[in-house]
Structures are given as C-alpha cells and as structure tokens.
C-alpha cells in the first residue's frame, strides 16, 4: 500500500519536460510542481484517480485496488481498467494490440487492412430500409408477441381457422403498428441530432493548409486544429498548442462531468516541428471505453519513440479553454471515440412490476391450457358418443355426398386428430387470456406518466432551467417501491459550490458576515477594473482590522489571508464581464482543481487580498490596491498521509515564510501549542463549532524560516525531487521535516452549500420508510459533518465507525459492530424508544471487507442501521455497496448522483437517477431519470412514484381481469355448442375487444387517475409504504380479480342464457347482448375503481361503451355477415334491456360489497387519507379560514 507503484499513465516527468526552458535546478523543480495539477486535501476521490502526481500514489493505489476487484454484475463501467492496460505499465504495447496512426497521412493510416471508421456518429437504431425488419425483430423479442404470431399463423391453417385471416392478424398488427410508430418517432429525433452533430465543421489539414471540413469527414491520422471554446470533434493526440510550453486546457464536462479545467500537454518533440512538416507514427492501443487511460508511443521520423499518456490526448466532446488554439492528430474517430464508446444509451431495465406480471402470465397460461384441454377432452367424448351418427346428422355431416360414386369424409381426420385440432383451435379462440394489449398499454401509459413527470413544475429547476428527464421509459412504476436510496454527496446533496463562511483568526471568531458587503473587492490594473467573479460576504470587523488594525491580532489576520491566497494551486484567469462587456471591467475567475481552494481565494479577494497572477515562480497579489510580488520558493503538495499542504514564500520584505494549511487533526500535531495557548484553545472551540455547522474546516499556520533553515530545506528538497527511486516518500519526509513548530493563525470554515431543501427531503424520505445511504469520495470528517447538516445524522444517533487499515482490524471492528447492534437490539425490545444507529465506514475498510468475504457481516450491520455513510469510496465500490443490498434483499434500490464516479452505482441500482448539475452529463447519460435537484426526489418518489405504481399495478390487474372475463364468457358458450369453438360474439368483436373496446379507458385511467392528491402524499410520507409493501399488485389481488372475473363471466353468460333458453333467439342477437354486457360490465368495474373523475376519464369510459355500441352496430349493418341487423332487432325488445341491467347489477354486486367492506371495515392508509382529503376539500369550500388552522396544526 505504501509502495508507490509505477503508474499506468505517467505524466511526463516534470523535470525532464521543463529542462530546456528553465534556469536553476531549484526553480525548475518548483515550477514544475506548481504547473502540475495537484491534489489538495478537499479534492474528491475521483480527482485522486485522475492525477498522476506521485505524492498521491498511495491513495491512487488504494483506488485501483478497489477498482480492480471485479464486482459481479458490473460489466460496463467506464472507469474500469482492462487487464491489458494494467499490464501496459509493465511492458510495451504489443503490435497486435495496437493501432498505427501515421501523422498527417490519413491515406496510409486508413490503408487496408486498417480501415478505421470515419468521424460520423450514428446513434439511430434504424435506417429507412432496415426499419421494418429490425423493429419487428426487436418487438418479437417479447415472448408474448411470438405467441400471438404463432397463433395467427396457426389460424391460417384451414383446419384450424377460427377467425378469418384478416381478423386473426388484426390485433397483433395493431399493437405492433402502434409500437413501431412510437419507435420511428424516437429514432427520427435521434437522427436529427446526429445530423446536426455530423455537420459541424472543424479545421483539418488538407495539403498543408487547414481547411474547414464537416466533422463526419475527419479520418484517423489527420491533423485537426481547434480554437478556444470549440468542441473537439474526435479523440486526438495533442501535437502543438498556442502555449510555448505546449499546455492546453480542456473542459471535460461533457465527458466525465467534471467542470474544472484539465491540463493537457503536447510533447516537446512534436511542438518543435512545424505542423506542416510533422510526420511520424503513433502506435496506440485499440479503442476502449476508459476515459482516464491512454497508452501510446509516438515515433517521429528519425527520432526515438516517446511515450504518450492520458495527459497527451484530448477527447471528443471536451472543450478547449484558455488556449488560443491546439493542433492534434486524430487517433480515434466516430464510434471509436471514448465518448461514443461510453455512450451506451439508456440502460434497459425491467420494472419489478413487469417481472411480477410474468408470474401471473404463467398462471393465466396454465388456466388457458386447462380450458383448452377441457374443451378438447369434452369434444373427444362428444365425438365418440356420436361416432355412429356423425356421417349424416345435419349439423355435422361427416360425409360428402356430392360425388355419388365416391362418398368421402369431409373435414374429418379421425377422432384423435379432431381432438388435437380442437385443442389448437381453443388456444386460438381463447388466446386473449394472455392480454395482448397489455404490453402496448404499459408502454403508452409510461409515456403518459413520463409526460406528466417531465411537465411537473415541482420538478423544474428554475436555477438551471432544467426539466426533469425520463430517459428510461420502462421503470416508471419502480419509483413507487424504493426502499434504499444511495446518494452521492458532492453535487448531489450539496451544490458543489464552496462558500467561505467563517474565519477564526488569532482566537477571534469572525462569522458575522451579515452586515458585510457582498460585493467582491475590485482592484485596478492598468486602468482596467478587475473584480472577482464570485462575491463573498465579509465580516466588517475583520475587514476593518485588516485595513487599519495594529497589533498581534491584525498581523495574524494579514498572514492568515496571505496564506489563503498563496497556499494553493489556483490559477487566476481574466475573463470578460458578460453582464457589462462594454465597460472597462474584467472578471477574475479562479480556476483550480479544488473548489475549496477556489472559495478560499475568492474569500481572500473579498478581504482585499486579490490573487492577480500566478506563474510557476511567483505570485502577484493585490493587497488593498498595492501590487506585491511573492516568490514561490517551494511547494509541498497535499497528500493523504500528512493531510496538509505548505508553500515557502519569499516575501517582498525579503523574509522567507512557510505557510501551511491542513486538516485540523494533522495541523494541531505540528503547531507549537506553547506559543499562544489561549489562541489554540479558542481556535479549537471555534473549529468544533464550525464543524457542527457542517462546515469544512481548515487550520492555517505559518512559520518564518531562518536563512539556515531555508538552505537546509532547499538542499533536502533538491535532493528529494531529483531522486529516481521513492521520490514521493522523500518529498513527504522533507515536507514533514519543515512543517513543525508552526504558529497558529486561525481556521477557516467553508460551506459546501447544501442544495435547497435537502434536509427536509431526507427527512421526508426517512418518514416514507426509505433508507438513505450516502456514499461519498469525501473524507470521513467532512462526510460526517455534511451528514449532520443535512439531518441525515442526528445527535441522538449512536455512530458505529469502521475505518481500519488492515484486514484483521477490519474484521474486529465488524464483529464489534455486530455485537453492539445485537446489544442495542435486545435493549430496544424492552423500551419503545429505539436507539437510532448510524454506520460510518470508509473505502479502505470496504476494500478489506469485499476482499475477505465479510460482506454478510457488513450487510448485517448495515441493515440494522438507520443511516449508512460511506466515505472515501471509489466508484466501483459504490456499485459494490448497491450490489450488497440488491443481492441480499428483494428491496428496490435507487442510486442518485451527479458525476462520472456515480455511473457505476447508477447502473447497478434498480433505479438510477442523474443530477444534471455542475458535473456534466456522464451521470445523466447513464441514468434512468435525470433532474436538477436532490429535493426533487421527494415529489418524484412520494408523488409520481406512488401514482405510477398504483396506476400501473391496477392497470395490469385490470388487463388480466378484463381479458379473462371475456375468455370465460366465450368458454361457457363453447360448452353449449358441442365443444366446437363457435362464438356467438362476432369474430370482429372478439378481436377488437381487447385492443379497441376496452383498451382506451384503462390507459387513460392509468395515466390520469390519482388515488391521493400531491398535498396529502407529501404531508404523509408514510403513504409511500403502500408501494414498498406491494399493496397495489400482488398475488392475492390477482386471485381476487380472477374470482371476480369468473363470477362476472357467469353473470354475463348465464343470465341471458337462462332467459333465452327455449326461445327463438338467434346467435347474432345473443352475441351482441353478450358483447355489450361484457364491455359495459368491465367498464363499470373500472369506473367503480376510478378515484378521481375528471372530464377525460368520463369521456374515456362512457365513450368506450358508446364506441363499442357503434362498432357492434356497424358490424351488424353489413348484409353479408350472418348477424345482419341483429343488434337493431334485439335492442327493440324490452327483454334485452332488462337482461343488460340484470347482468350489470348481478355482476357488480360482489365487487361492490367487497369494496364497501374493505373500505369501511378494513381500511388501508390510502383509504383513510382519501377520506381525510375529501373532508379537507369540503372544508376548503365551506370554511376557508378554518382550513388554515387545521393546516397549521398538522
């Protein structure tokens, strides 16, 4: 763990890189350190993983350990490193694994057998030609559709023809058609955006000159020139930039979601050659999805091969920033680019409800098989009973006498075959037992539900103008059954915008920023007013002291801010004021890896210490209007062992000072406490207060270095930084040696501002019975403090902390935790007040736990805890934790995050939600739903999730029920036709029943019905439990629905049957009566269960009955159909209406009784809440002022 391994993608050694351009060895190394991106202590885990600095090797290594452990089920993770890559650090890229790119020679590069794709992208699934076959192919992945297709095909066999050929294909064609239209529309939209993307132009070297060319025409090997703020068209190796040292800044927000700038370097070797003359061979690895890895060598003609790494490649989708231009060689184009390889589109998940429907579908299939077997057996018995008569009886007439010489059997294949045919015909006749329209209904309903989720103003992010996005359209209803929420912290719970809030300087607390001006301190430079981009509120007392104060305290304050402004790696960038571009005003934007440092520098600027310029050797600071130059003599980067960072500064007054900032526990170890015990005590008190507020705290210290000390340090530093082996360790030693006996200056409190409403949202989720787990890359202290500030942790909770450095200690802490949990559990049985538990565990321990198969123990502890906080976790560990729960429970999990590091868990969880925040698109691309704010989770789950689940559950049950009812009606009739699969209901009504007659109301109800209002659902989050307990869809409900269905079919069939027995009724008339009766009955059944009647519901339900009547009338108006005019005839008789009424009443009585009993004597929560809502509404109308009081009380 401590051995700094050779990194897979080493940043070119800074010393070598800068050797030609700098003077002394001393300044050389200093400069390189400053130039290099570094990891500061507040940076997230993911920054650790992307940086190559050796000082972070240990933490990087720990990440890799975690990352390299295969987590079952996680197959496509962008951060996963392939075996070949890891091997690449040890040996060269083998030729057979490589791609050869000849610089500026696209023809040779693409010569066979290479044939690389061009740069056009295609995200569409279909083309005009392939649409029909491919779409059908995909649709027939649904087993049910294959089933219906087979039945339609069987029906075409003359012996089995139950329906006419057209009628038999109609329902399937209808559902396939509707789906195809939907798919075509979606694909057309993708096609349009592809076209826009492919037609963008880039400047490409053609015959020695850069010419504009559409993106789609760029080929591997071509040189592409990109100017500032342009998007990169393909993955390319940087060869030269406008910067003489070959630096280019890119923003990778579209790729991995990180908003800060990343530095990329062109190799000196390529920089020095004029671009037109550039030629050579790049040997790079085959395209892969890893956006953090690149392995290649470049062999310029006549020189030795130089290795290339991640820092030399710029990826498609990134934007060039702060660099006038950059030229690169296209190495991966089009679908080979890393962004496209990572763009796997929305993951396809199946909802829990849909999975459950399989069970019921199987039950129905068994019932269907039973019905068919029964019919065919009875038919066999009937046939053998009548075997002597079959030849001549008028209604069978086995024999064909039309040729008097040879009497043949007509349509007769023997009793056995006849039975088999009957069976198959029965399957065809009763096929809708498996509801054909269910799947398309579900899809339409989800589209409708998605529409309402997207339109919901409560989930619209005003700040970013971002709507809710539904990316996956097949798991809407899962939102109503979530039990576990796994949340990222930074950017998800917090805004990822650090804000300087408190300063403790020399024992004095300066947190009174209310009176201070929120305007950043402006400085003037060459007549141009510079203003920091972000204003920070200041404390007037501290401000006054800085300006005019004297004495130790004021000096300490000045040094305090000097530390803030110098001890960092922030680069100031001057940008135009977008609000007021005409004025001679510019904004200073501080760019850096760590948002904490940005906040500190902005704060310093507000207090009059404005960082104006930073080069590798010096810093220019505007102190209350006077520009001062500070020489940077040395810099010790942050590392996770020391947990602090320091700079050695040569001040304008020729003194040399060491400024240090760091985490409190590490800083108090190196502070000379004897120097100012009062200040130390006061600062400690303040620190405690700050961290209780959830602030991220830093302690600031300094020391003036004597000449001897400095020289001693300089020599050690020099030696360490040029060492070939163990450089990181040596540098750490040097830093630890100088960072001692510090004078405490004070402490800062930075707020990572929580997003609006996060504590309330977490509280609501918790009330709803959802367990919220926070998984963060942050360090433990920060994680805990944020846990407190977002009310995840409370003071009453007992915290179980597991952070172990070895396997054994890890096992021990787990065992301790288990015994503690058991102890508390045994206590809690006595008293009602249960002690809430919180588990805090860090990434290292997780590595050990997952390595040594203590997962079960962890699971045991974790589920006993109310809250789980995992800190310092790597992306794959996040997925591992989600998997831990998914594997061991049947509970639904939801993961929410905003960054690339959350992708793995978003894909692992049952429902993945991306926050479309500052961190870009990666999480959103992998997610099923995307939204702007964490707090939208509450309306999403508690309101929409609840509705979606309840609606979808009912719709599925209803679909089963209505089709079964119809099939049973057919079945009873078949028993009265000599078991010959005749229907009195016309075949057109049979096939239209499930797709037309009864489909619309259930879809409309499933989109629009609301069991409870938004207000009630939010007021009583516990109502969410209905979904978690699967109350809207379960086997019991299914059985109830089926019993209802059998009863109603009996009523529909036998009431008219008994009334018309021994009468002149013809089959068409009776069939029409049955058609209408069953349609009205199932619609009334639906109507009885509708909770909210608006005009659309009315229109759909009653309209559907009217539409059925019209359809029946139209069918009966066709003279060549046997049933011509039957409906008009039968509707003219009183008996028809009397029977219809009787059927409806008799059919509905059991349902009505059951409903009345259930709702009154066995009410569930939803029922009670409905009643409360109802009385609330009547209150609203009659006593508007009283209503206010009740609201307040509640």
């Amino acid at each position, binding site marked *: 763990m401590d051995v700094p391994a050779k990194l897979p993608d080493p940043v070119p050694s800074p010393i070598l890189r800068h050797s030609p351009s700098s003077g002394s060895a001393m300044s050389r190394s200093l400069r390189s350190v400053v130039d290099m991106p570094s990891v500061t202590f507040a940076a997230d885990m993911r920054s650790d993983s992307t940086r190559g600095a050796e000082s972070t090797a240990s933490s990087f290594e720990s990440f890799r350990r975690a990352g390299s452990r295969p987590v079952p089920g996680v197959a496509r993770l962008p951060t996963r490193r392939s075996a070949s890559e890891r091997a690449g650090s040890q040996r060269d890229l083998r030729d057979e694994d490589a791609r050869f790119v000849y610089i500026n020679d696209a023809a040779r590069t693409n010569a066979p057998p290479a044939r690389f794709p061009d740069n056009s992208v295609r995200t569409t699934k279909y083309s005009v030609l392939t649409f029909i076959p491919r779409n059908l192919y995909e649709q027939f992945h649904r087993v049910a559709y294959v089933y219906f297709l087979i039945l339609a095909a069987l029906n075409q066999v003359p012996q089995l023809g139950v329906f006419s050929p057209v009628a038999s294909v109609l329902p399937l064609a209808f559902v396939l058609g509707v789906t195809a239209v939907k798919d075509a529309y979606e694909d057309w939209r993708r096609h349009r955006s592809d076209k826009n993307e492919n037609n963008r132009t880039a400047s490409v070297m053609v015959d020695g000159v850069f010419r504009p060319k559409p993106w789609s025409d760029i080929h591997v090997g071509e040189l592409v020139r990109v100017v500032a703020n342009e998007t990169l068209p393909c993955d390319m190796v940087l060869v030269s930039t406008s910067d003489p040292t070959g630096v280019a800044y890119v923003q990778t927000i579209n790729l991995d979601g990180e908003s800060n700038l990343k530095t990329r370097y062109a190799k000196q070797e390529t920089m020095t050659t004029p671009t037109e003359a550039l030629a050579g061979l790049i040997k790079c690895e085959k395209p892969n999805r890893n956006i953090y890895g690149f392995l290649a060598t470049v062999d310029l003609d006549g020189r030795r091969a130089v290795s290339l790494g991640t820092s030399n490649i710029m990826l498609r989708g990134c934007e060039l920033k702060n660099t006038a231009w950059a030229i690169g060689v296209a190495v991966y184009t089009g679908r080979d680019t890393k962004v496209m390889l990572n763009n796997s589109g929305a993951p396809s998940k199946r909802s829990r409800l849909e999975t459950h429907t399989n069970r019921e579908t199987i039950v129905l299939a068994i019932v269907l098989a039973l019905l068919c077997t029964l019919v065919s057996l009875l038919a066999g018995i009937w046939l053998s009973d009548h075997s002597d008569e079959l030849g001549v009886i008028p209604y*069978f007439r086995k024999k064909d006498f039309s040729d008097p010489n040879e009497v043949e059997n007509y349509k007769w294949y023997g009793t056995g075959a006849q039975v088999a045919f009957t069976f198959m015909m029965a399957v065809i006749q009763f096929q809708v037992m498996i509801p054909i329209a269910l799947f398309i209904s579900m899809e339409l309903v989800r589209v409708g539900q998605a529409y309402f989720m997207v339109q919901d103003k409560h989930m619209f992010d005003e700040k970013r103008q971002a709507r809710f996005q539904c990316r996956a359209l097949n798991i809407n209803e899962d939102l109503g059954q979530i039990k576990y929420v796994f949340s990222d912290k930074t950017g998800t719970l917090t805004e990822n915008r650090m804000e300087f809030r408190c300063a403790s300087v020399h024992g004095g607390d300066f947190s009174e920023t209310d009176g201070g001006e929120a305007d950043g301190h402006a400085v003037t430079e060459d007549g141009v007013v510079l203003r920091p981009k972000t204003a920070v509120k200041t404390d007037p007392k501290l401000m006054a002291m800085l300006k005019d104060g004297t004495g130790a305290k004021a000096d300490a304050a000045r040094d305090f801010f000097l530390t803030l402004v110098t001890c960092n790696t922030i680069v100031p960038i001057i940008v135009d004021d977008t609000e007021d571009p005409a004025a001679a005003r510019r904004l200073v934007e501080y760019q850096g890896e760590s948002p904490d440092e940005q906040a500190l520098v902005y704060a310093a600027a507000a207090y009059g210490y404005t960082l104006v310029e930073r080069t590798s050797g010096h810093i220019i600071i505007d102190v209350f209007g006077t520009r001062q130059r500070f020489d940077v003599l040395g810099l010790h980067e942050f590392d996770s062992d020391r947990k602090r960072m320091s700079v050695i500064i040569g001040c304008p007054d020729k003194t040399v000072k060491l400024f240090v900032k760091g985490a409190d526990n590490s800083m108090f170890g190196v502070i000379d406490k004897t120097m100012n015990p009062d200040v130390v005590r006061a600062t400690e008190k303040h620190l405690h207060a700050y961290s209780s507020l959830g602030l991220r705290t830093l302690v600031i210290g300094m020391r003036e270095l004597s000449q001897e000390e400095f020289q001693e340090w300089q020599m050690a530093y020099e030696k360490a930084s040029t060492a070939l082996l163990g450089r990181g360790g040596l540098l750490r030693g040097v830093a630890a040696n100088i960072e001692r006996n510090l004078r405490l200056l004070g402490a800062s409190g930075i707020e990572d501002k929580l997003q609006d409403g996060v504590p309330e949202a977490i509280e609501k989720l918790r009330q709803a019975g959802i367990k919220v787990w926070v998984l963060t890359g942050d360090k433990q202290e920060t994680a805990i403090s944020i846990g407190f500030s977002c009310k995840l942790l409370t003071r009453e909770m007992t915290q179980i902390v597991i952070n172990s450095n070895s396997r054994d200690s890890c096992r021990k802490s787990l065992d301790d935790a288990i015994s503690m949990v058991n102890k508390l559990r045994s206590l809690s049985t006595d008293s009602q007040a249960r002690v809430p538990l919180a588990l805090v565990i860090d990434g290292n321990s997780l590595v050990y736990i997952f390595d040594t198969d203590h997962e079960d123990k962890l699971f045991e502890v974790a589920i006993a805890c109310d809250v789980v906080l995992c800190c310092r976790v790597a992306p794959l560990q996040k997925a591992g934790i989600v998997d831990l729960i998914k594997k061991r429970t049947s509970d639904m999990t939801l993961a929410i995050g905003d960054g690339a590091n959350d992708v793995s868990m978003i894909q692992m969880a049952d429902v993945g939600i991306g926050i479309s925040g500052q961190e870009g698109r990666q999480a959103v691309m992998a997610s099923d739903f995307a939204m702007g704010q964490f707090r939208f989770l509450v309306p999403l789950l508690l309101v929409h999730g609840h509705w979606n689940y309840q609606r979808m559950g009912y719709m599925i049950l209803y679909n089963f029920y209505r089709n079964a009812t119809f099939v049973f009606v057919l079945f009873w009739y078949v028993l009265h036709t000599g078991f010959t699969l005749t229907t009195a209901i016309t075949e057109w009504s049979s096939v239209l029943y499930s797709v037309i007659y009864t489909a619309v109301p259930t879809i409309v109800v499933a989109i*629009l019905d609301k069991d409870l209002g938004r207000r009630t659902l939010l007021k009583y989050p516990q109502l969410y439990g209905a979904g978690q307990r699967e109350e809207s869809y379960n086997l019991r409900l299914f059985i109830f629905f089926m019993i209802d269905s059998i009863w109603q079919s009996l009523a529909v069939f036998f009431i008219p049957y008994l009334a018309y027995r021994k009468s002149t009724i013809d089959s068409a008339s009776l069939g029409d009566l049955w058609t209408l009766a069953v349609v009205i009955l199932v619609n009334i059944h639906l109507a009885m269960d509708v909770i909210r009647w608006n005009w659309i519901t009315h229109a759909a339900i009653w309209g559907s009955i009217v539409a059925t009547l019209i359809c029946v009338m139209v069918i009966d108006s066709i*003279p060549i159909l046997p049933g011509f005019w039957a409906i008009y005839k039968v509707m003219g008789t009183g*008996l028809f209406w009397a029977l219809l009424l009787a059927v409806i009443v008799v059919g509905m009585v059991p349902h009505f009784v059951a409903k009345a009993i259930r709702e009154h004597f066995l009410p569930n929560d939803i029922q*009670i809440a409905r009643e409360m809502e109802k009385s609330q509404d009547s209150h609203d109308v009659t006593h508007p002022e009283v209503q206010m009081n009740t609201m307040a009380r509640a």
Partner: protein
Amino acid sequence: MPKYSKFTQQELPACKPILTPKWVVSVFFLVGIIFVPVGVVSLLAARDVVEIVDRYDDACVPANMTDNKLAYIQNPNISKDCTRTLTITEDMKQPIFVYYQLDNFYQNHRRYVKSRNDGQLRDAAKANQTSACEPEKTTADGKPIVPCGLIAWSLFNDTYSFTRGNENLTVDKKDISWKSDREHKFGKNVYPSNFQNGLLKGGGTLDPAIPLSEQEDLIVWMRTAALPTFRKLYGRIYVDLKKNDTITVRLSNNYNTYNFGGKKKLVLSTATWLGGKNDFLGFAYVIVGGLCFFLAFAFTLLYFIKPRKLGDHNYLSWNRHPAGR
C-alpha cells in the same frame, strides 16, 4: 420551461366519490326498489303467457316402428301424416304464435354455422360463390347449389294445420322472418336451384319459382339459433282460443331428428313484452332486489355495530402502531 396548466400539473377539476355508508346503503336500497317491482311485473307478465307444448316426434311414429324410428323416417313410402290433439289450458288471446322447438339440435355447431354463403343468398350474380358451403356446395355434376351449405340443406320441413272442431284455424305464415333479412339479406331475384338434389336429402325443398326473399321458412331457418334447444316461428293464428278448447293438429312428420336423438315439439304461445313464458327473469329480479334489500339492512347494521369515523387520522397504520413496523 414546461407549460403550466391544470392538465399538465394533473390538477384538472375532478370529482372524488367515496363509498360512504350512506352511499352503500342507498345504492342497495335503490337497486332493491327498482328490482323487486320490475321482477314482480315480469313474473306476472310471464304468468299471463299461455303456452302449450306438445312433443310429437315419438308419438307420431307408428307403433310397429318405435324400435326403428330411423327406418320409419327414411322410408319415403310410409306416410308421415300424424294427428295430435291439444287442449287449451287457459284463454289465449290472439295473436297466437306457432313455434316448432327442436331439442339437442346444435345449430351453433362450428361445422354447421360456417356452412353457408351469404353473398350467394343476396346476389343472383354470385350463384357460383359457394365457398365455405362444403359439403353441400355443388351437385354431383358440379353445378352450384343455391342456397348452398348445410344450414339450407337441413331446412326444417314438418308442416302443421290446425282445426278447432270444424273450424279451420288458418296459420298466417307471412312476416315470420325479419324484415331486414327479406329486404337486404335474401335477394329478390335469387331463385333456388339444384337444391336438395343430392344423394342425401337433409330436409325441406324449395319452390324454384319463388325468390329467396319470399321463402320465409328458409329465412327463419337460416337465422341460426344461439343454443342447442331452440324454437323457430312457424306462423301466427289470429283467433282467440278459449280454455278447454280442443285443437286438432294435422302434421306431417317429415324432419329427421331420430338419427341424433333430437326432439321435436309444437308450441302454441301467446306473447308479452317480455317474450314468451319464462319466469326466470322475474325471479332473478325479485331475488336480486331482495338480496339488495338484505344487503342494505346488513350494511346498516354493520355500520351501526362497528362505526368508523371517516378520515380519522388515528386509523392510519403508523398512528395505530406508533412503534413502527
């Protein structure tokens, strides 16, 4: 920016009915109030219907042939005439409907119902359209049979005539079929041809000079019955019959039901708005109505015994078990 409307926010004005005890009891009460009287009226109406049923298929077989009915019916040389005497049990007001009833005759059998061609019946030009008519499609020499198919082939051909004493009761055979069938389904210029010329005669013959639209017995027969026991209208008698009147029926027992155990019955019946003599509907209504009254009382009682305040938040599960589940 999403468009805000009541629709997109799912806040359309809506009615939210709740099954309160009041509603439940009133619904049952209302159904009871409607159903019991309707049921009583239907029962009375059904009781008013006078129906005389006479099964004659066995009785009309000569005593010496009861063991071999099939031989009797298939022998064209034996006279099929038969006389039955009916006694009127109640006064019957005209019109009196004369039906024949067939039992156990599957007119809804798949092989049977499909064996027809409606196009041919309607249009003289489509006489050759005999698809689906097997096995009564064409004659031995390939000429199309009009009307083709098993249904037409098996046309019922028993005939009845009625006398009361010496008075001849004419049976009006006009208008026994549906007007819509005569006008649109059976062509005015379609004449029977090659009908019943095959080896096996299934039933009645048709006069080739009369167009199908006027062959009312055929039209009635071709309206296939829904159930295996069915009646078909034979004609109407526009004479009032008195109680204890004796009616002599002279019938020709031509139709062969002996080969499948079918029964033939002659039915004389008056009619009401509800159709024939079937008190099922009345009983059903009375029983359902009664049940609804019972349910109304039962629910009233239940609500009284075990009242629950509507919308009382104390009933919410988390308020009932504060410790949580």
